[in-house]
C-alpha cells in the first residue's frame, strides 16, 4: 500500500509542483525545523484509512508559491494549509482510483493542523515514508482512520 501511495505522491508532486522527491533510507537525515504542517484525508469504508503528508513550514511555503506562481514572501498560512490539503486530496483521489474494489470507499474532506517540534515528535505516525524534497523533509503517512 505504501508503494502505491508513494507512486501517487510522486505523480502529484511532479505534475503540480515540478518537485522531484527522493526517498530517504533508514538513518538518512534531512534537517527540518518546526512549525510543521500536517494534512490528511480519511478514506472511509469497511477498513477506514487516513493518509497524509507532513512538511515543515518552509516547504509548505515553497509548495504554495510554486503552485500559485507567486513570491514565497506573499504566501499566508491559510494558503499553505489550502495547498497541502489539496495535495493530500489529489493523492487520496489518485490512490483510490488505482485501488481494486474501491467502490465501498469514500473520500472525506481533507484536514490540516499545525504542529510544533514537540507535538510532531509526540504524534509522529509509525507507518510512514520520508522524502527529501528540495533539501526539505516530507513525510508521507498512513494510519487507521
Amino acid at each position: 500500500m505504501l508503494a502505491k501511495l508513494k507512486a501517487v505522491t510522486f505523480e502529484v508532486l511532479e505534475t503540480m509542483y515540478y518537485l522531484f522527491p527522493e526517498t530517504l533510507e533508514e538513518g538518512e537525515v534531512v534537517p527540518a525545523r518546526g512549525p510543521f504542517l500536517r494534512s490528511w484525508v480519511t478514506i472511509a469504508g469497511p477498513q477506514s484509512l487516513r493518509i497524509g503528508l507532513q512538511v515543515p513550514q518552509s516547504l509548505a511555503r515553497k509548495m504554495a508559491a510554486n503552485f500559485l506562481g507567486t513570491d514565497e514572501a506573499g504566501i499566508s498560512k491559510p494558503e499553505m494549509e489550502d495547498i497541502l490539503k489539496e495535495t493530500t486530496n489529489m493523492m487520496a483521489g489518485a490512490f483510490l482510483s488505482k485501488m481494486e474494489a474501491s467502490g465501498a470507499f469514500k473520500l472525506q474532506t481533507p484536514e490540516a493542523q499545525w504542529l510544533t517540534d514537540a507535538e510532531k515528535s509526540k504524534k509522529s505516525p509509525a507507518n510512514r515514508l520520508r522524502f527529501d524534497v528540495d533539501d526539505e523533509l516530507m513525510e508521507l503517512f498512513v494510519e487507521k482512520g
Partner: protein
Amino acid sequence: MAYNVLIVDDSATMRALIRKVLVISGFDIGEYFEGANGREALGILEQNWVDIILSDVHMPEMDGATLVKNLKQHEMWRHIPVVLITTESRPEVINPFLNLGVHDYIQKPFRPETIKKKLTGILGEAITPDASETESCDF
C-alpha cells in the same frame, strides 16, 4: 476565438491554479468568471454569457451535481458544456455526472496541455500538433 470561462470551486487556491494553468496552456480566454459554489455560478450566469464551465464536485451550499441539474433545466444554459475538475476517476463517482449531462472530466493532477486539449475538443476546435508539443511548459 476567445471563450468566456466560468470556474466553480470552493477553494480560492484551486480557482487560482486552474486560471493559471489555462493561461499557461494557451487556451484563448475571453472573459473569466469564478464562483465558490453552484449558487454563485448561477448568479454569474444570470448576468454574463459563458461558453464553458469548469466545476468542482463537492462544494458547500450547492454542489456540482445540483449545479448541473439546474443548468439542464434552463433553456439558455442547458447547452453550456460542463467539465468536472475532480480528484477521482472512479466510474461510481464520474458516471452519475455523465448521466446528468456533464461533457467530460479532468482528473487532478493535470497538465496545461491536458486541460487545453479537453476544452478545445469540447468546444469544437482542432489542436495543431505543434501547439500541443510546444506548450508543455512549467507552471
